[in-house]
């Protein structure tokens, strides 16, 4: 999945592909008598086999959207389908084809790790003879083979999360929903979870994940929908979202030995430079941010040449490529929630 940030893995197109794995149209959810809806006319479609990320600040409506899709929240209006099944019209059928990894661990602490998987399979009608073998296979895949008889209380956060993912897969769902899958995990556990998600996508399971972690979205998702105040602000591949940002890449320069006006004039004259900002403030050295139209690396040499011509000495160069975080901040603002 090294190229997952660009496009979908190429697959032979069949008529089957026409129907999205998940479809949300004009979805509205208003809790009680609150004036502002949690989800306010959201629409998007997820293709089969895709990893789709819903990215947004806390309270943006991501979890509510997943709640509607997983039959735990009733919609106010609009339409939501999973694998072609309308989740409000036929929640029972929808539950059979979707798997859920919730934001908060909800493992059954009256059962051990294997029991959680085996009974989940029983709820979903997996034949008795296959349950245990399937559970052991998934425990193995999730690196929990030695924890089969451990009580969930004694698992670490990462182990519990892996067990929850294993549980969500016991009934072979067509769409797996992961709500904030790596919140609170240490870096190793995060990486492990990321690898498993990538593996799932490669095996053809459609994955819908919510996150407020830009790096996670950029790394895992084929496409990302940025949501705020219950509305969709942007929807594209992470790289396309970044490419659409105005301003593009930056070069930060720390230097001495020339006055700012001269420097700005010289740098501005270089082709492919969108602008120069003076960020010196109180610092003793001059500090400039050069915004480039294209990639920062491409104009670095001429910019440094222009600086040398002005008689300045550069002490530090810092190249900044925009990230999904910049897109996110650009769309949702800097204010704290």
């Amino acid at each position, binding site marked *: 999945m090294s190229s997952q940030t660009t496009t979908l893995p190429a*697959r*032979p197109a*069949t*008529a*089957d592909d026409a129907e999205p794995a998940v479809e949300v149209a004009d979805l509205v959810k208003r*809790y009680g008598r609150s004036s502002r809806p949690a989800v306010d006319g959201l629409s998007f479609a997820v293709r*089969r*086999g895709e990893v789709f990320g819903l990215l947004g600040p806390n309270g943006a409506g991501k979890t509510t959207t997943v*709640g509607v899709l*997983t*039959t*735990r*929240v*009733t919609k106010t209006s609009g339409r939501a389908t999973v*694998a*072609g*099944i309308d989740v409000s019209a*036929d*929640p*029972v*059928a929808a*539950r*059979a*084809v979707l798997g*859920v990894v*919730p934001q*908060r661990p*909800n*493992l*059954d*602490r*009256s*059962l051990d790790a294997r029991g*959680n998987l085996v*009974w*989940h399979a*029983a*709820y*979903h*009608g*997996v034949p008795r003879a296959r349950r245990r073998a399937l559970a052991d296979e998934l425990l193995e895949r999730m690196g929990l083979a030695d924890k089969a008889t451990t009580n969930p209380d004694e698992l670490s956060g990462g182990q519990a999360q892996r067990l929850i993912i294993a*549980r969500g*897969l016991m*009934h*072979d769902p*067509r769409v797996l929903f992961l709500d904030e899958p790596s919140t609170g995990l240490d870096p190793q556990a995060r990486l492990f979870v990321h690898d498993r998600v990538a593996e*799932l996508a490669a*095996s*053809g*399971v459609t994955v819908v994940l919510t996150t407020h972690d830009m790096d996670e979205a950029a790394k895992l998702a084929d496409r990302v929908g940025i949501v705020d105040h219950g509305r969709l602000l942007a929807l594209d591949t992470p790289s396309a979202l970044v490419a659409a940002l105005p301003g593009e890449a930056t070069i930060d320069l720390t230097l001495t030995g020339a006055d700012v006006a001269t420097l700005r004039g010289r740098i501005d004259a270089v082709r492919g430079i969108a602008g120069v900002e003076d960020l010196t403030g109180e610092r003793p050295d001059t500090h400039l941010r050069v915004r480039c139209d294209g990639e920062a690396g491409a104009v670095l040499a001429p910019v440094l040449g222009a600086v040398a011509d002005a008689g300045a000495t550069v002490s530090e160069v810092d190249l900044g490529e925009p990230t999904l975080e910049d897109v996110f901040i650009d769309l949702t603002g800097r204010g704290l929630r």
Partner: protein
Amino acid sequence: MSAPTAAPRTAPRQAGPGQGRAFLGVLGRDLAVTGKEFGSFISQVLVQPFFLLFVFGVVLGQLGYVTPGYAQLLLPGLLALNAFFVAVQATALPLVIDFSYTKEIEDRLLAPLSTRLVAVEKIVFGALRGLFGSLVMIPVGYLVLDEVAWDLAGLPLAALLLVLGSLAGGAAGLVIGTLVSPRRINVVFAVVITPLLFTGSTQFPFLQLGNLRWFQVICALNPITYVSEGLRGALTPSVPHLAGWICLLALLVSCALFGAIGIRGFVRRAID
């Protein structure tokens, strides 16, 4: 995890396993957990009624404060009490904790089973525990008390009454479990459960309360009264008792009323 390129998975596939199997799966989980914790279950079921039986049936009898026939009256009452209470406890307490803190029930709410049927499963499971709790009182009663004689012809009716009493208890537990917040559960158990314990006509015959009319009216509102009185009619008909059909009707109404409120409360808690 088959590859998506295999036989196109078209249109909604068969809606999972059928709700019957999902229901049995969820019920099987609850029974399996009870089996694992059998020791604590049995002590929870036996300790309180055993002491009631011992003090009222044996100690007070030996001291001469109660008449010899009292044990005959008490045992059906304690069967009724256990059927209802064990069921209430089996349903109410875990639900309060599940919905408010652990969310452990979520995985079952996501089973291919309608949410109402998950609620029905809770009632049925509570009722099974209640039924078991009342049946184990029979040998205990025979061992502790020396003067128990039952009319065996009444056993089928007695069994039916116990089933209905347990179901009413399970449904009442569902009402408490879905309406009461965990901060209030202690208060509710103190102010609801204790009065229920002493107004269920378990320790006295309902019809002889004529001189305490107000108390009789309160007892008439307690479903346990109808299990106790019905059991006396079936097993120890010499003790004055309410007519069987009144008891059956009252229990059916209790089941329907608590069931309807409880299931509504459950759905409200389960789905936002």
